[in-house]
């Protein structure tokens, strides 16, 4: 009570007013959810990274084509004669928001922090042995073995100021288990193009341009108001009624309406994410099936029949309203190892599918339960529902169990599903990332998402060899060999690559980012 009274006078003067109309430089940016934290090493999650990229910076960046570009590091290469050490040359004349200079010490500190026990970024740095500052602007990263693709892992690892972190006692990543609050969760000091002005979690955050940023071209957008709006209809309505300028997560069914509305335009582009179905391998009968003495999925003819029954083009046309890229391989085209040949998929052939099922001993089909998430991927539940119908036509009776991702994900993690849908993004742009988690036998650090428990010792060996192979041609040949087997064996049933859609006022242009991490620095205004 007392607080209210004493603060009353002061507070009334310090009224925070909403900017009622967008001035030319202010962008009101809406998306479905908010960043989970401002601590740059606490979470490995896309929405959080996207927000952090505006305040903090990484050593390397990736452009919209997916190629690595310099950011805080200007050059990077393997040390002469030492394939296990990466050398990074740092950018000169960079300062943090508080004015402190950016040096190699900050990089050493940040990489060490990112690979500490409490960091969720640490698996990306699992092969790092040591990080050393050679001089003020050179950093060496010693790896445990040859790691030819390590720089790919650096595009979401942000650099913090060592002095600032020490002064504010945030040397360690926040341990929320111990109930710790952490200064870095709500305060920032990066080198990035924008400075955080205010933040109300889940409601709005305000960022303003950093005048002292190193980039030569100043961003067109000088103020960002970031607005998480979780409900699809409300988010679209906000753009239609002119209350926001950019909507990042646009439901596919609203694209037509939005692009047909005067003053609004829509940008689309492929995302680095594939949507696929997985199923249970092994001889043990399936828990959800009426075939009690064996596992029908384990028969390659059944898997082939399933693929022949799934009409990817119809899914694209009706469920996705054209906003998807059907594929026959469980990796997006951005990824090293993808080929057009792999990407091809067979035409629907119900007769052949039925014949294959009969041949396999299931003339009347069988029953199985499909687990699908319903709030994670674009129209995930609708895709699964369509697949239920398509498989029904060859006699496979699929029961659909639809859950939010928080409840769906444990089923996949614990392999307690017979048939499931999942999406897979490839942040390293390399096939090894797919193989490690989806194809390798589930053991140790490998196969965490191999929910179907597929196991092929020959492939496992090849997959493990990818991590340390320095001859890139040889490595690519191995990748091709692995893909050939994965595709022939139908380890997974890929459906399509997702397409991203951003909608915005027509005087604004924001190109689609393949990892769905758009930068407001890339916005151009007419």
């Amino acid at each position, binding site marked *: 009570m007392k607080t209210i009274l004493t603060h009353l006078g002061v507070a009334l003067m310090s009224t925070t007013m909403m900017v009622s109309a967008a001035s030319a430089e202010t962008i009101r940016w809406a998306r479905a959810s908010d960043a989970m934290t401002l601590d740059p090493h606490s979470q490995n999650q896309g929405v959080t990274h996207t927000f952090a990229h505006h305040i903090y910076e990484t050593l390397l960046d990736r452009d919209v084509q997916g190629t690595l570009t310099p950011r805080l590091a200007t050059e990077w290469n393997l040390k002469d004669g030492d394939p296990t050490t990466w050398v990074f040359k740092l950018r000169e004349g960079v300062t943090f928001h508080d004015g402190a200079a950016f040096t190699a010490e900050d990089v050493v500190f940040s990489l060490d922090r990112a690979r500490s026990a409490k960091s969720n970024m640490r698996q990306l740095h699992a092969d790092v042995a040591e990080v050393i500052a050679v001089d003020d602007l050179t950093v060496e990263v010693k790896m445990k073995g040859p790691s030819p693709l390590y720089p790919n892992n650096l595009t979401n690892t942000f650099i913090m100021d060592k002095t600032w972190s020490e002064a504010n006692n945030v040397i360690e990543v926040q341990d929320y288990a111990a109930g710790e609050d952490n200064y870095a969760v709500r305060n920032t000091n990066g080198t990035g193009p924008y400075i955080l002005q205010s933040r109300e979690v889940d409601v709005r955050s305000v960022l303003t341009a950093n005048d002292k940023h190193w980039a030569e071209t100043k961003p067109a957008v000088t103020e960002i108001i970031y607005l998480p709006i979780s409900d*699809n*209809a409300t988010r*679209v*309505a906000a753009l*239609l009624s002119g209350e926001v300028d950019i909507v990042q997560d646009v*439901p596919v*069914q*609203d694209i*037509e*309406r939005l692009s047909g509305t005067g003053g609004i335009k829509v940008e689309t582009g492929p995302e680095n994410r594939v949507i696929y179905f997985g199923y249970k391998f092994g001889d043990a009968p399936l*828990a*959800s099936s009426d075939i009690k003495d064996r596992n029908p999925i384990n028969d390659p003819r059944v898997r082939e029949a399933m693929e022949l029954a799934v*009409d990817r083009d*119809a*899914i694209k*046309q*009706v*469920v996705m309203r054209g906003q998807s890229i059907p594929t026959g391989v469980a990796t997006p085209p951005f990824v090293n190892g993808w080929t057009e040949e792999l990407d091809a998929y067979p035409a629907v052939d119900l007769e052949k599918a039925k014949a294959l099922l009969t041949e396999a001993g299931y003339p009347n089909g069988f029953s199985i*339960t499909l687990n699908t998430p*319903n*709030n994670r991927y674009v129209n995930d*539940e*609708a895709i699964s*529902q*369509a697949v*239920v*119908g*398509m*498989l*029904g*036509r060859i*006699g496979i*009776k*699929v*029961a*659909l*169990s*639809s*859950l*939010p991702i928080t*409840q769906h994900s444990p089923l996949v993690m614990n392999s*307690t599903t017979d048939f499931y849908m999942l999406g897979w993004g490839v942040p390293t742009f390399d096939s090894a990332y797919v193989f490690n988690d989806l194809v390798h036998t589930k053991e140790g650090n490998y196969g965490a998402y191999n929910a179907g428990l597929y196991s092929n010792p020959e492939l496992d060996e090849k997959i493990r060899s990818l991590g340390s192979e320095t001859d890139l041609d040889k490595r690519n040949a191995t990748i091709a060999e692995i893909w050939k087997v994965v595709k022939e064996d139908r380890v997974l049933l890929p459906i399509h690559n997702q397409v991203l859609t951003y909608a915005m006022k027509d005087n604004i242009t924001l190109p689609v980012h393949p990892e769905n991490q758009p930068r407001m620095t890339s916005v151009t205004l007419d």
Partner: protein
Amino acid sequence: MTTQDSPTQHTPAPPPRPAGWLKRALDSDMFYSWRRSPVTVVATVVALALILMALFAPLIAPYNPFDPSSLNLMDGFTPPATKAAFTDNWFLMGADHQGRDVLSSIMYGSRISLLVGVLATLLAMSLGIALGLTAGYNGGVIDAVIMRIADIQLSFPAILIALLIFGIARGVIPASQQENMAIWVLILAIGLSNWAQFARTVRGATMVEREKDYVSAARIMGVHPILILIRHILPNVLGPVLVIGTIGLALAIIEEATLSYLGVGVPPTQPSLGTLIRIGQQFLFSGEWWILFFPGVTLVLLALSVNLLGDWLRDALNPRLR
């Protein structure tokens, strides 16, 4: 209030036996009042039509929307009264995003909504009446305990209780049975999350009723408490129970829709009206209005006619209001 005098000159409250009820109802003022109210007649006709449509859905529906293998995805988003682009199918109320006939979906969906609504409300009502009567009549410790439980129940939004029961069910029911059990879990969840309103109202009315002379008289005469409850108190608390019960039925149907909106309803392959609305709501801005409109209208008609019937029933049962 104090002058309101004693025993019941009530028409008998709706007794459990339908045959007797029917005979007496036709003779009684109730039938007369029903005929006198055109709104009620219309409501009855609409409600009956919807109930019959739901009951006989498998016989009269043009398609079977619950059989996924009969659907053709390419029929998706066919507008009402239009022939599909790639097949010979024709949809009076259009097709939804899966190529499902909206009319057939409504017929089958109403079945599920009505089943969930009626059973959940009956569950809530019987539980609420039993506990409310017990609490109000006995008072003291029993009252305190029951009302504290009611407090606890009320302290959770119905949606939360439903989520809780869903979560527990998920832990208890084996994965292969969950789809079949979903509807029963829903009934249990909605039923258990709504009984407290009944209990509180019944208890309040019982406490007032209990103090009346005729009840005291019966008690002094040594009439068994259960008989007193059923014969004297129950008829007098039925009025408020019907007010809550009618709204409760519509509420249960709507709660099912809200649970679907939050993603824990019946499976999308066997949609209820609520699920159909949730699905249709996604197409509000994109111009496929029929996917939302027809199920929405059906739900409103259903809830409205039930509410109107309840209104009339309440007035008819309460002779003082005529």
